[in-house]
């Protein structure tokens, strides 16, 4: 196994084009797979020295979060936490303190687990990612990246340089909740990210909800506009949300939960994240 740590995006892409090449960010998935011989790379391409890949920047257009920024560093960024509390909550749940010191958003997305905690929150936030490859950069919505467990749309030589989140308009809020069987260090049974905006009269103007761990890839709920736009959430609309979330579920059954349990929890977490996000939006 070779190891390179390229200093430019182009060199990184050239290294990643080779057969058996794997990008290395925080290594918290990759090294486990190496150890358990799940993968045997010919070359590991440490992307952390590529410019912009470990930076966090705020501009008029919104936020840039470098794909290889460790979660522990993102969590310390106060104004990002204010703008996107749900996204930060989600990524702060990835592993222990030790894992937080290394784990990244690029790795969480590209590992392509249905249970990846940051992904539903990033999708709900309408995030996009900038993909760097041999022919330059392109931008894609986050929900377009994972195609099935363990597989992404990234072509040979491509890697994620960073994530873009919009600057939330005033009256916006987001939230992420997951259910795990213990209180720390476990894999989500269900995870739900929700983001809403409201007008001066507390009526919802936009809403986006994404669910994780209930299907092979993250799911975006369709049909929310008809239920919520122009209204405050009430019992009727919340009940409709719960049914919508439950009917979006195509989960697996494993030791963490039966299909019925996961389906039920999806509805519960959709309701709770909406309540939190709405509360935040009306105070924002």
């Amino acid at each position, binding site marked *: 196994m070779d190891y390179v740590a390229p200093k430019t995006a182009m060199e990184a892409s050239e290294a990643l084009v080779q057969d058996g090449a794997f990008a290395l960010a925080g290594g918290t998935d990759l090294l486990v797979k190496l150890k358990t011989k799940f993968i045997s790379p010919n070359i590991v391409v440490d992307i952390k020295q590529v410019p912009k890949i470990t930076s966090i920047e705020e501009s008029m257009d919104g936020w840039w979060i470098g794909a290889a920024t460790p979660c522990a560093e993102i969590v310390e960024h106060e104004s990002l936490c204010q703008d996107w509390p749900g996204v930060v909550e989600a990524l702060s749940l990835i592993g222990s*303190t030790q894992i937080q010191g290394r784990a990244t958003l690029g790795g969480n997305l590209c590992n392509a687990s249905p249970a990846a905690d940051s992904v539903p929150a990033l999708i709900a936030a309408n995030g996009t990612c900038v993909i760097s490859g041999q022919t330059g950069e392109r931008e894609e919505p986050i929900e377009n990246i994972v195609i099935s467990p363990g597989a992404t749309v990234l072509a040979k030589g491509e890697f994620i340089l960073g994530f873009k989140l919009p600057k939330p308009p005033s009256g916006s809020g987001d939230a992420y909740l997951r259910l795990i069987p213990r209180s720390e260090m476990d894999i989500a049974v269900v995870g739900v990210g929700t983001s809403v905006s409201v007008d001066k009269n507390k009526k919802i103007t936009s809403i986006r909800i994404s669910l994780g761990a209930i299907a092979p890839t993250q799911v975006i709920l369709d049909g929310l506009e008809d239920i919520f736009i122009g209204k405050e959430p009430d019992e009727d609309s919340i009940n409709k949300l719960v049914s919508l979330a439950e009917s979006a579920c195509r989960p697996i059954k494993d030791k963490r939960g039966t299909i019925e349990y996961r389906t039920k929890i999806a509805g519960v977490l959709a309701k709770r994240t909406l309540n939190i996000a709405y509360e935040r939006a009306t105070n924002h």
Partner: protein
Amino acid sequence: MSKTHVSTQINGDSYEFLCNTQQTLLDILRHELDLTGSKEGCSTGDCGACSVMMEDRLVCACLVLGVEANGKEIETIEGLSSGSSLDPLQQKFIDLAALQCGICTPGVLVAAKALLAKNKNPSEEEVRFWLAGNLCRCTGYDKIVRAVLEIAAEARNT
């Protein structure tokens, strides 16, 4: 297989070593540099026995490649005491019997030091969450948590 030359700072001292790319930082510390204080429990990031500081961040040395340490500053449990005098946290662990077999202890101490550097007044809940990635099969955690809280309180009062 060709080896990569790595130079790094560990506990303030310069170290140079040759490393094959499969070796983790934990392999290097334990098997090449004879710094055997960091322990190997799981080698998959779950137990925290291998906790070290890299560039001032708490990490699992079993999930870092040795080659990634090039140019980095590392702190391990060996750097905690000065000569034969123990760090107050180490002494507190002994006084409160916060260790039994001791396998988890180096990792717990490194992790607890990292918490106290960041947060001088952690609550019990904060200590428990911070140390959730450090597994202990012996103590039941309570004495560990108490030792950390007591040291924090003593440091604030002096």
